[in-house]
Structures are given as C-alpha cells and as structure tokens.
C-alpha cells in the first residue's frame, strides 16, 4: 500500500506501524472516567467494512502519527491527516 503522507507525499505503507481505530485519540481522563467508559475506549471497535479512520505511525520515516481514512474492503485511501492536527481539532491539548 501507499500512504500519501501530508508532508512527505507517497510512502510505502511498509514504513509505517499500524495501531488501530482513530477513536483511540479520544482517551477519557482517568481521574474522571468510569472503568466502563475506559473499557469502551480501550476495547470496543466499530470495525467497519468500508471507510475506517485509523492511526498509522511513520516509524521508518518522520515519526509522524497519521490518521488515515481507508476503505477496509478495497484498501483505497480516502484521506490522510496528521494525527496531531486531528487531535487538536477534537479538542485535545495537554
């Protein structure tokens, strides 16, 4: 597969490490969340057959974490964003 890195352009997916669903960006706060909420965050997945937003890490590249929107049926990649930008847009900060 080829991932079109927002900064570096097309790169072989082999340079990346895959983590999983981009919902992992939305980590609850451990001091206020319930165990059940944290369980849902850590363990439950939509696992769609179709467009899937997912986290890839450019380990053998520039070390950026990316959010890749990819069709899990065709493997077509629809969008690639820097995960840091996505995280900020989702309200994450410090």
């Amino acid at each position, binding site marked *: *597969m*080829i991932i079109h890195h927002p900064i570096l352009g*097309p790169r*072989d*997916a082999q340079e990346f*490490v895959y*983590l999983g669903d981009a919902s*992992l*960006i939305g*980590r609850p*706060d*451990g*001091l206020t*969340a319930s*165990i059940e909420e*944290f*369980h849902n965050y*850590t363990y439950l997945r939509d696992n769609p057959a179709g467009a899937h937003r997912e*986290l890839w*890490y450019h*380990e053998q590249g520039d*070390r*950026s*974490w990316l959010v890749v929107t990819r069709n899990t049926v*065709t*493997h*077509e*990649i629809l969008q690639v964003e*820097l*995960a*840091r930008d996505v*995280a*900020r847009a989702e309200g*994450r*900060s*410090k």
Partner: protein
Amino acid sequence: MSQSNRIAGGLIDRSQTLRFQFDGLPYTGHPGDTLASALLANGVRLMGRSFKYHRPRGPISAGSEEPNALVELRSGARQEPNTRATVAELFDGLTAQSQNRWPSLKFDALAINDRFNSFLTAGFYYKTFMWPASFWEKVYEPIIRRAAGLGSLTRLEDPDTYDKGFLHCDILIIGAGPAGLSAALTAGRSGARVILADEDFRMGGRLNAETFELGDQAGAAWADAAVGELASLPNVRLMARTTVVGAFDHGIYGAVERVSDHLLEPAAGKPRQTFWRIYTQRAILTGGATERPIAFENNDRPGIMLAGSLRAYANRWGVAVGDRTAIFTNNDDGLRTALDLQAKGVDVVAVIDSREGGALLPGIRHLRGAEVIDSAGRLGLSSITVRQANGATEVIKANALGVSGGWNPNVNITSHHRSRPIWRDDIAAFVPGTGEIANLSVAGAAAGTLSTHGALVTGDASARAALESLGLTAKAASLPKAEDAPVRITPMWYVKGANRAWIDPQNDVTVKDIKLAHQENFTSVEHLKRYTTLGMATDQGKTGNVLGLAVMAGLTGKTIPDTGTTIYRPPYTPVALGTLGGRGRGQEFKPFRLTPSHKWALEQGAVFVEVGYWLRTQWLPKAGETEWRQSVDREVLATRKSVGICDVTTLGKIDIQGTDAGAFLDKVYANTFSSLGVGKCRYGLMLREDGMVFDDGTTARMGQNEYVMTTTTANAVTVFRHLEFCRQVLWPDMDVQLISTTEAWAQFSVAGPNARKLLQKVVDQDISDAAFPYMGAGNITVGGLRARLFRISFSGELAYEIAVPTRYGDAMIRKLMEAGAEYDAVVYGTEALGVMRIEKGHVAGNELNGTSTALNMGLGKMVSRKKDSIGMLLSQREGMTRDDGLRLVGVKPVNPTAELKAGSHFLKTGAVARAENDDGWITSLVYSPHLGHYIALGYLKNGAQRIGEKMRAVNLLAGTDTEIEIVSPHFIDPEGERLRA
C-alpha cells in the same frame, strides 16, 4: 538421434550448438531454444508423469501455462523441481531429469494407479481410509504421503543468492507482444518513465510464433525493431526474462527477473534472480491470451498439444512435433495452425473441425462437423479416432495433434484484487472485469481483442489514455498494417464419452470427476475446485479452469457466467522462495547490532548471545574455565566482592526535553517524575493502557526541562513509539521533544564495593557519596571528555552507569579494565547480570511478560492514583486487584543441592499435578554463587501471604518434583545498604 524433428526457419541461432542432457541422455539444441523445443526437436515427446495416475505426459504448450512438461532442472544443490521445460531457456551444459516416476520415466511403477482409476475419483479420499480407525495414520496416510508431490528438493542449501529491489515508473507495461510493444512505443516516445516487462527471454510475444506481417516486415522483425527503438530511449527500461507476478495495492506490482537462469551458474557476486517491487502511476496489462483445449477421451497423451503451441514450435523454433499431424478445432485459429504447418512442409493428415458447414481448407483433409473421440499410443500419440459428421468413426494415424478450443484472455493479474472476469459470448471467453485495480488498464488479447491489428490499436490507445491521465502528451503514432481476422468460434468444450477426458492434466481431473462433483452437489465453482482439485495444479488452471467451468455449466443447465467464474491469485507463475527471501538468509537474516565493547570482548574470547538484533557478551571465559557456570559464578562473585563492569548500552535511552517534560512523564509513568530533583534519577514503571506493566527503567532529570529515560533493551522501539503517540495524539499541545540517544552513548555499569574507587580514577570530578549520592545523575568528564554518570544499581551493589560518546566506548572499556586491575575488576555478561538481578529481586523480561500488573510484581504502590496516567484506571479492574492473585515471590530449594528449572509450576505438597492445583510458576531461575544454591523468582497465587511456605516446583517435562520454600524475592541486602554505601 540428432534433432530429427528440426525443420527450417525459426528464431534460433543454428550457428551455435548447445549440448544438454535429459534423464542422462545427451542431446543438442541451439540458442533460442527452450528445453521443451530442443527435446521436441530431438523427437522426445515424453517429458513427465501426471500427479495422480502417473500417466505419460508431454508438453501441451510452448509457454508458462504448461501443466505437463515439468522437470527437475540442474542437479546437486541447484536442482530445481517442477521446472517448466517450455520456458526453461536452453544453455550449454544444461541437465534435467524427469520427476514423479520410479524407476524411470518410461516404466513408472505407480502407473498402476491408472488401473485403479475407478477408485481414485474426485473426493475418493473423503469417503474411505476410515476403517479400522487407527489405520489412517499408521497405514494409509504414510502411503499417500510417500506418493505425494511432483519434483524433489535435494535438502541441500540453495547455493545461489537473490536480490531484491525497488523500481519506479509512470507506466508499467506487462507483456511485450504486439499490444505491449505498441503501448511502450507510444508511452516511451512521449518521454514518460516506462518499464516494459516480459516473461520471455525474447520480446515480441506471439509475433515470434506467427507468420504475420506488420506493414512490410515479418512480425518478429517488427518486434525486433520496436525493441531496438525502445532500448535507445533513456526513459524506457526493458526487462526481458521478467515476470510480473502480482498486482498489489495502490499501483505496486511484484516482478521476478531471472538474471542468471539462462546460465550454467550465476556469475560471481550476481544473483540468480531479483525480486522487484515496482511502484507505478499507471499499468497496462498486455499479457496476451492462452489457448485452451477441447476435452476428449485420452486427450492427455504426449504429442497432443494446443494447436497454437504446435504452430509456435514450428514457426519460432523450427520444430515439427510429429511427422503426421492432425488438428482438432472449434475455431478459425486452429485452421491457421494447419496452414502454417502445411506451409512448412509438415504432413497435416486431417483437420477435425467441430463446426458444421462452411468452407474447406484447400489441399488439406478438412473434416467439418467431426470430433476426435479417442486416441492411442502408450508413451506418445500414435493415432486418433475421429467421428465424422455422418457418425462414421475412423482411426487416423498421427503422432501429433493440435487442439484448439479457443483462446482465453490472460485475465489473471486483473483478478488479483478478487474482481471477477466477465463473459463475452462473441469470443466465448472471459475478459477482465473493470475498475477493480485502480490505474490498471488492459489491452490487446488480454482484453479480448484477439487480432494483431486490434492489439496494436488498443495498446496504443491504452498508452495514450494513461499518458493523458498523467498530464503527459502522446505523440502521433503510425501503426503498421496488420492481420485483423475476426474471431470465428463455435464453442465446444468436450466430446461426450464414457471414459476419461482430461480437463486438468497435471492433477488428473477429468470430465468424469466434474460429473461426480455435480452428482454430489459440489456444484458451486469453489466447491468444484476444492472437491476435484481442478485448477490447483502448478499452472493454476490456466488451460483447464474455463473448460471445467463449462463442463459444470453443461451439467447444471446454467450459462457459463451464471455458473460462476474462478479467479486467479498471485503469483501469476510460481516464484522461487529464494527470490522472495532475498538476501535475508543465514547470518544476514537480520542485521547485527554490536555494542561499543564488542571489539574488545571479541579479543577477550567472549561468548555472545542474541538479544533482539544485539549481540551481547553472555559471559567471558577465563583460561581453564570449561563450563559456563564457572565463568558466570566467577563474574558474580568478583563483582560482589570487588567490582564488575558490564556494557549496558543496549538499554534504550530517550532524551526528553521541553517545558512540559515532567508533566509528560507523569502521564506515561505510573509514578511521579515532575517532582524529581534535577540531578537525580528515579525508577519508573510504565503501564499499558490496559493496566499491565509495559516497561520499566530509570529516568534521570538532567536539567529543569530535560530528562533521560531508560527503557529495557527489548522495548526501546515500542516505548519510543508509545511516547510519540502520547505526545502527538493524546496531549498534542504539551511542549515535549523526543529523540533516541541509545546509540549515541556507550554506557557501562560499574558495580561492586570498589566501584567508586575504580571510577574515581577515571572521572574528573569528585564522586564521593556526599558529592554524588545514591540515585544521583549528572554530566561529568572523563579525561576531559564529556560523559554522563548515573548512580543506579541493578545488581544491588554500590553501582554506577557511566556513558561516553560511542566512539570512545572501546577505549572506555579498556580504560576501566586498566583502572580496575588493582581491584581485580571483571567484565560480567548478561548471565551474571541475570544472577545478580535475581539475587536482588528485580523484575526483568521473564517477569515483564505483558500479563503482569504492578500488583503482581509487588509494585502496586507505585501506581499513583492521584494523577491520571496511562493504564492507571484499568489497572484497578476487579480481576486485576484480587488480594489472592499472583504475586512475585522468591523461591529456593529446601535441599540446597537440589536443582530447579524455570517454567516449573508450583504445587502444594501432596497436590496432584492437574490444572486446578496449579499455583503459579517459576519465571526466572539462576544458581546463586553468593548463596550457594539455586534461587528463583516466580508468580505464586496469593504469594505475599505465603512467604515461608514449603511447597513443590514440578517440571512434568523432565519428570522432576522438587521441594521448595517460598521466600522474599530479595535474596541479598533487602535493606539496600550496599546500594547506598
């Protein structure tokens, strides 16, 4: 017998003669020959045996679709089983032998299977060999397994090397026949980066096998000229002997280049083959079409082949397969073979044309509405039986029969993404489905355009479309005038009969097998394939699949497209495993990581151990030591008595800076680091989000906004990845910068009562306990050289870790040993390191097993619940906080001379060794020379409450059962007085 079947013409170089051997007999051929063409030229039709019935087999094709003529090529360690004689390029000195036969190709004992064919039907195995029950594994299966397989491996290491590589292009063109050459010319002339790959050693495809003219040139001459022009273009890479084997995601193709297979052996330093990963913007498949047979009884004899192949042998290789040749066809292309052969002076005894009516070929016995219904000849065709339109049957003497059932476009690669081909009635064949593989187009015969003119036109058009989509401009092309015959075919798949008619000749799948599958309701295409093994042979059913499908369609009364399609999987043709393995073999399987003291340790005769990619000193034997334990015990005792040195560079080191560095560490560690004083270190415990311990290590605060984190050797990479995740994704606004410094520093542990004395001789600053207390950290100098010092201990002794820039690491170990001579300093390896950490009760890899919590390790209090950190909350789940859960304990044998084994399980005294009595296990075990007996760490249920309990460590694998006592995991200096000395 010297090339008795060679006739005039062909693209072989008769000025040179090549000698070769098949089954020990000598033959000759010429450059340009394949093994098959040369054998046929020498009158050899019998080249193999089928898989199940061991029926005699000769080639049915002249290309990579060949299912029959498989041989063991070369000998000794280079022996290469299942090699298609039809594509094996002849070279001087070639040797080959037939396979899957015993004792000889002509007299094969297992041909007896053919006599029992009424038992060995499709699905036979599933119904039988069950009685008595024990016989399957003891009797039946061993017999079946002995008969398995086709060719053999020698079990010797492959002596050749293989390369891998990466290519980039705008347009990849797969196949250099008329369509491919046309596309390449258009694309190449435009200036685009083009790769043209062809599996053949001679580009031109069918143009080399036909007598067509292109413009005023012979087809092969036109191809030569086209190749010549392409070779002159710097933006075009021509890759003959290169098979594109698979289409992968996003325009990546895999290709195998046979660099040296046409040589006796590869030149020095050169690979046998190279596996290329080709990155493309666009690809055009111009892979041509493959002819398919018509099934009839006993249609599998040597001498019976595809009509177009018979023609190719005559036109390209100057070989007449037989001196009495017949043709059996359902389409006009079969007639072309008859005419070409006749023009070459070959005696064409009959053309059996299943189509009724229509014009007759001049000067040839052309039987319309006729069928071949049987054949004869034990090791090769001697006659065919023909049923004429009027029902009369006739035996015709013939030693070659060309069969044409029509042509199947080579859709293979287009279905590598699992898209299904589409049926076209007008050519009675499947053509590629569209759009499934992005940016791949198909032209020429592969797309179902079966004329030469059509190939040139569609090849050009595909290239134009590709160029345009890339924003490039195509120059006007002038295509030569070429043959443009329409496809005239009346589909006819098999001749009805009571006996076996072969569909898949290698696996011996016959029309009867398909009928049986239908009868037993294995009618879906996938069931048909799996039940009969149709299409599972080494050719993936390139000639047989559509035929089998058509037979099933006939049985079910459905149309062929309604019956289904089968799809092909990568690779297009089989690929040597060596090629896909590349250089990564033997010692080069993975790179080495060498420690800064490696050169010194090598000089000292160290024994090394693989730790991930690292090689570390495991122990360092002294003269006279014959057992490893002697060395390890000495290293431990010397360290505890005086001082020992260990290279600990392999531990991961991560430089963490930024104004939020402390807050960041509080998030990623279970314990607190923001409160750590500058110039101090602290042991840190890192959890995964699921609350299990991820890693541990010592992290030092080198400045207000600067920390150095240490990870375990094993987790250096994964911890760094995790920290980047936390930094970029979870807390993107934290001011934190990360970089690995693992390799930048050569780091040595100096441990033992005399550690300070030794180090004080080396470092430039005062490192007295007052100046550099326990858990201190700081920048110092060593002979003026910048260095770092950490007062930390894994061994339980007074200990430091000192780091210098890596290039000085070799000098540093020598310096430390020199300075330590007066204290009898030793270097200790990973074994002694393990002994001392277990004596001290520190957890390491065997305890950090990914399923252990801080609580399990006796470190539960380290998980701060006053702050949010990774894994804090989920570590509090009920199943992970049980009071009676596993706890880390120390173990010692009650009898001090008793041996123990890591991995032994804990059982109460008197308990039966069953799972319900399993109380835990020994994680790590060493012999403690300090204590004079084995000691161990282990996880024990409710372990914290069981200190002092006597129980057993049982190792059922070795049959041992040893009485043990559960003790504190801290075997030495539990109060830590030595550390703080």
